[in-house]
């Protein structure tokens, strides 16, 4: 048997510490199938995100981190998350000027002057992970679905690339991946959150303007945020059951 004493002790030590369910959990995570791990139960989570518009500084860290983490094509038509800059003339919330150069990937060159009688601010956007998703309802082959823990996902082996869902999403959160010709979207970093990590965008945000929250975990700080802030979701009139809660959202934001 080709096994030295150190190796043997390390192995048996692991077995002693991680017995039963924990051992199976570790193995599932190492195999890359955390959803099969007994320690992560989809029924025990309900994911959402708290976004504080007043904290966003438009640095683009979230956009770069997301593209890096999820291997999103670098083309300026492919974003799982992006940042928009709003410029709203005094009192005219019906006609905001909105720009998002390369989704904010390279930051925002200054375009406006202080004191021009308008207000400017940044709005980070991503999939709202709706509880009643319009995009899921229109998929003809059932490739996209809401997971039991509240994440809208796509099974790319079923996706035909018909683009119905791209049209149906009221928030413009879906795009066709030019490499696979199937739809792609934010997965809320499902590979990370099922291992107890936060999303790449939240990890990289320097001001805490976006924070992932588990709405089923009573100890999650998102409950404190929702209690102490006046929050709004995007396009509430569409009753999508969005779980991206914005603080300080201006009426001009669409």
């Amino acid at each position, binding site marked *: 048997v080709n096994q030295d004493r150190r190796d043997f002790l390390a192995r048996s030590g692991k077995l002693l510490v991680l017995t039963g369910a924990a051992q199976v959990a570790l193995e599932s995570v190492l195999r890359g199938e955390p959803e099969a791990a007994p320690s992560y139960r989809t029924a025990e989570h309900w994911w959402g995100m708290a976004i504080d518009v007043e904290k966003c500084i438009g640095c683009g860290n979230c956009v770069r981190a997301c593209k890096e983490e999820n291997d999103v094509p670098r083309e300026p038509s492919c974003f799982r998350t992006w940042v928009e800059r709003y410029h709203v003339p005094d009192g005219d919330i019906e006609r905001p000027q909105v720009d998002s150069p390369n989704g904010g990937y390279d930051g925002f060159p*200054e375009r406006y002057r202080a004191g021009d009688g308008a207000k400017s601010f*940044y709005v980070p956007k991503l999939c709202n992970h709706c509880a009643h998703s319009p995009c899921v309802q229109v998929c003809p082959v059932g490739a996209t679905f809401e997971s039991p823990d509240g994440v809208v996902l796509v099974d790319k082996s079923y996706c035909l690339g018909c683009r119905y869902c791209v049209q149906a999403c009221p928030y413009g959160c879906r795009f066709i991946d030019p490499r696979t010709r199937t739809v792609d979207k934010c997965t809320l970093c499902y590979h990370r959150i099922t291992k107890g990590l936060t999303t790449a965008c939240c*990890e990289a945000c320097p001001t805490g303007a976006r924070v992932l929250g588990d709405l089923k975990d009573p100890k999650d700080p998102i409950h404190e945020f929702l209690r102490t802030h006046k929050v709004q979701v995007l396009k509430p009139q569409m009753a999508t059951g969005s779980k991206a809660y914005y603080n300080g959202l201006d009426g001009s934001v669409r």
Partner: protein
Amino acid sequence: VPEAAKGGPHAAIRCEACHGPLAGHAADPAGKQAVRPDPRVLCARCHAANVARPARFPQVDVAEHAGGEACTTCHAAHNPLAPPAEEVKSKDLTPAGPIQQKGGTK
């Protein structure tokens, strides 16, 4: 390095926000060092004056404020209200790395 940020305004920012992905460094802290980004690009991403940024967020007109000088000549990167440590000053601050290839805000 994490101790250097304690008590400063950058204390709550996670390492990867500025240094990029660090999984390799976490697995092998001595062997894989974190990328040291160019402060003239990195700092400006957040702190270059921009009307759309929240007014209370610290911002400067980079050209006027620094005149091409690296921010880290006067500020410690991990705690910018303090001056930099002497051993940092003498180091070359502009190595090649993935984070500074893309343009900054200016």
